[in-house]
């Protein structure tokens, strides 16, 4: 898999990753709570629980992220645009850093060379340190998602 960074100026995370798995399988891994727990914050001693997702317009999702030490980060949001299997736009708010505002996560999945490319845009952050923190977390989770897709046989 490859991860590319770049995109619009300003405090926005913009990443894309390619996977040797079809669009429908990437969509399932991205949206099914049981599978989310397998790759989201699934490295460096982190673990997740309370992963839920009501995949409907204004449906709520929750993810609790437990670091190796310290407080649990509670991520909460609502799906706004749910277009299986290629587009999901959700609001996002976490207790990570001092993030006391809503952001938007916009995910597209498109076919590419027999596999799929996932493009993620997450913004707008109020400062670059919030942006950098989320970019690091997404890079690590996309890497884990690639590993999960390669090793699981769903």
């Amino acid at each position, binding site marked *: 898999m490859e991860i590319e960074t770049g995109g619009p100026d300003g405090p926005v995370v913009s990443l894309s990753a390619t996977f040797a798995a079809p669009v429908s399988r990437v969509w399932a891994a991205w949206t099914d709570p049981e599978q989310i727990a397998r790759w989201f914050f699934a490295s460096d001693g982190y673990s997740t629980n309370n992963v839920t997702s009501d995949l409907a317009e*204004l449906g709520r999702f929750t993810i609790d992220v437990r670091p190796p030490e310290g407080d649990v980060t509670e991520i909460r949001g609502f799906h*706004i645009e749910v277009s299986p299997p290629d587009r999901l736009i959700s*609001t996002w708010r976490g207790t990570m850093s001092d993030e006391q505002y*809503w952001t938007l996560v916009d995910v597209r999945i498109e076919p590419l060379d027999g596999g799929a490319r996932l493009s993620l845009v997450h913004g*707008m952050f109020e400062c670059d340190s919030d942006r950098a923190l989320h970019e690091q977390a997404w890079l690590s989770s996309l890497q884990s998602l690639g590993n999960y897709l390669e090793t699981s046989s769903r």
Partner: protein
Amino acid sequence: MTSHLRAPPGKVFRTWTDAALIPKWFMAVPGYLPALAEVALEERGAWRITVRPGDDESQFSHFHGYFFAVEQGRLLEYSWRGDVLGAEHTTLVRVTFEEEGDGSLVRLTHGVFETEAGRAAHAQGWNLCIEGLARAVEGE
């Protein structure tokens, strides 16, 4: 974008969110009919605005979304989706209202746009809206 208005934040906030006042400023430009607005000002409440460049319904633009943060006189965060070419996807609007001298400082952020055309169209639209907002809250 940032604007300075000669009216208190409470009044600016009310004008921004009251369905009866939105037509006074939202795309209130010469030749346009007043916009139509519906607003449920609460978390996850829906809003909808129809912009009417004339009386031909096929020319109307439709915008809608949901509020995610509502702090009276201070902050709004809401989703935004409209039929603007190049930006038909959902975006997020964040607007803060602060007291500044005897007026208000209004900061608006809107994104993330997929295309430069979508970003430019919204920047232009917001400029017209903020000019209208200034007229609406500073008048009388």
